[in-house]
């Protein structure tokens, strides 16, 4: 469901641009079943249709998105300069969500510990509750079974929020490109701001990625809802 629109394109694809396959074999594309998450207010997304995509690209520019006071809060009334200052503040205080999926979680913790200390840039403390987190560091392989809960976590985080894909598995599926139960890159199910490849990336890599994220926050100048949207696969797939 989470990538339903892409799924439809996928089903259209093979006949056109791929070698024909026996009917039915390997035919069903991955549908990350977003069975856990539903928007709290379906009317807010895509004109009342229960949302298939969980990111905000479509939503940010609808009337509902512009006038959604709960989502924009005070940011709607302050001028852009103030937004710039707010972004400076946000870029310097990025609280990650303490959510480790797999191997990369160990390196994520290691980047917060004594040897290489993320706290120096204010990327600490790791919040346990998504309501108080700014950055969702997806550290490790995202399986189809975990996709629903992860999307739900992402939806529970308050704006402004950012997503960091840590590790090959989350960036593109990595060594599990052939697996039957792994999402091939989390940008198929949720927006991603920073990709950090590596299997796993060193802690320095994560810290560098987080600093890049801070730069990104400053560059966007308060337009934090216009984030790059996955998937990174071409649209006609």
């Amino acid at each position, binding site marked *: 469901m989470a990538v339903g629109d892409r799924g439809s394109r996928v089903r259209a694809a093979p006949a056109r641009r791929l070698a024909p396959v026996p009917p039915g074999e390997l035919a069903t594309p991955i549908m990350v079943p977003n069975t856990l998450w539903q928007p*709290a207010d379906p009317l807010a997304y895509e004109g009342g249709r229960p949302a298939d995509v969980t990111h905000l690209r479509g939503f940010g520019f609808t009337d509902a998105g512009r006038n959604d006071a709960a989502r924009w*809060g005070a940011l709607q009334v302050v001028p852009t300069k103030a937004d710039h200052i707010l972004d400076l503040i946000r870029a*310097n205080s990025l609280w990650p969500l303490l959510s480790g999926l797999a191997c990369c979680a160990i390196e994520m913790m290691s980047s917060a*510990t*004594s040897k290489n200390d993320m*706290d*120096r840039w204010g990327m600490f403390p790791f919040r346990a509750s998504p309501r108080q987190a700014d950055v969702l560091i997806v550290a490790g392989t995202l399986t189809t079974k975990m996709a629903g809960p992860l999307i739900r976590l992402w939806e529970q985080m*308050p704006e*402004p929020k950012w997503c960091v894909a840590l590790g090959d598995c989350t960036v593109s599926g990595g060594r599990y490109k052939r697996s039957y139960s792994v999402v091939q890159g989390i940008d198929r199910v949720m927006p991603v701001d920073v990709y950090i490849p590596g299997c796993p990336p060193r802690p320095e890599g994560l810290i560098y990625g987080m600093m890049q994220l801070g730069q990104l926050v400053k560059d966007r100048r308060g337009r934090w809802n216009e984030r790059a949207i996955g998937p990174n696969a071409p649209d006609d797939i």
Partner: protein
Amino acid sequence: MSSVGGFVRGFPGQFWRRLSLQERLALIFAPLAIGAGVVTVLAIVLLGPPFLDFLRANLPLVRFAVAATAILLMTVPTAFVIIYLELKVIARMNLRVGPNRIGPWGSAMSVVHGLKVLSKEDFAPTGADTTVFTLAPVVTYMASVMTLLVIPFAPGLIGQDLNIGLLYFFAVGGLTVLGLLMAGWSSFNKYSLLGGLRSAAQIISYEIPLTLSVVGVILLAGTMSTNRIVLAQSGSLFDWFVFKQPLAALVFFIAATAEANRTPFDMTEADSEIVAGFATEYSGMRFGFFFFAEYVNVFIVSALAATLFFGGWTAPFNWPLAYNLNWFNPWSLGFFGWAAIVLTVLVIGSEFFAVIVKLLGGREWSAWDAMGLGFLIDLVLVVGVLGLAGFIAFDWVQGIFWFLVKTYAFVFTFVWMRATLPRVRVDQLMGFAWKWLLPASLLNLFVTATAVVLLNR
């Protein structure tokens, strides 16, 4: 015609274009400053006396309003300082560096965190009881702030010197649990509910040993006014109640730790068990209120511990209070005299240091940079000198100094415990309160009462 018009139109433009930035600024701000000064002087001269009479007429009201406002305003920087202390001290104890990018030694980190939290999206989860959900942080925060009203910061510097000060403190401080309970109940989340119930059970059962441990002090001091309790401990180090009431001091400290939800008694937001306890569903400004209230609570319990057992604002040794400076009466100059002095000192000092900086720094220092740095240096010096003079001259400066020293010693202890100790279990927590702290405080009360009776006879 056109030339005239062009001149008329061009004149201000050309004239303006010739000016440098400083000149433009001066041209803009000088008239404004002059006008503002004139208006101020007129206002003071004309409206000052009747206004002062009005204020003098109902002094207690004004005093209370000023005190309440000052205390409310003071909590925020206090929270920032303690958060920074916690970040940095825990980092050092973890062999980390801690925040060191924003501000000197990362000292602005807590401010940035706070502002960021306030600027986050703020919403109530679907299914939550929005009214209660919104009120809960306010209740918690206000309960914490209101208790500060009876903390004596220095001789004469106390919000309200109630004769039932301690009673007021515990009564109002007990309201904190109400906020936590509201938060836990209204969040539509089981973790929040568990956290709220835990906090209710914990705080209510630790109120009892907390209060009982203070009764001994009340017996010795013969009053419940915090101010007079401090006065009763004035003198030297050994007049402090911690030496007369060691057991009570211990019980009070432990119970206060639980009262402030600090490690090892932070059951209410136990990360590894109930995700963030009562604050699980809170985001943005509401969470910020909880965040601040926690650290304000730390400050308050530390201040109370210092007040009750460590002599409050009294110096640890006999200090000649209010040293008599006959050769200089600060009040004889009046407002304008002081303003003149301060301005001259600032301007001349700034220029002086700016010249030094320019000479030392060389080319890469522009004039404005040098003047800015010079102004900073001069400001630091002036503040230091004034503070020293005030410390010698006024007893309330001394009082604040000693009070803050003692209080932050306790704050440091709380942070230290947080970095060191694991968390106790709920049943162990309750068992400790009811099986050990309560009997201990009762024993202390009994012994103290007996001693008081015997000595008075």
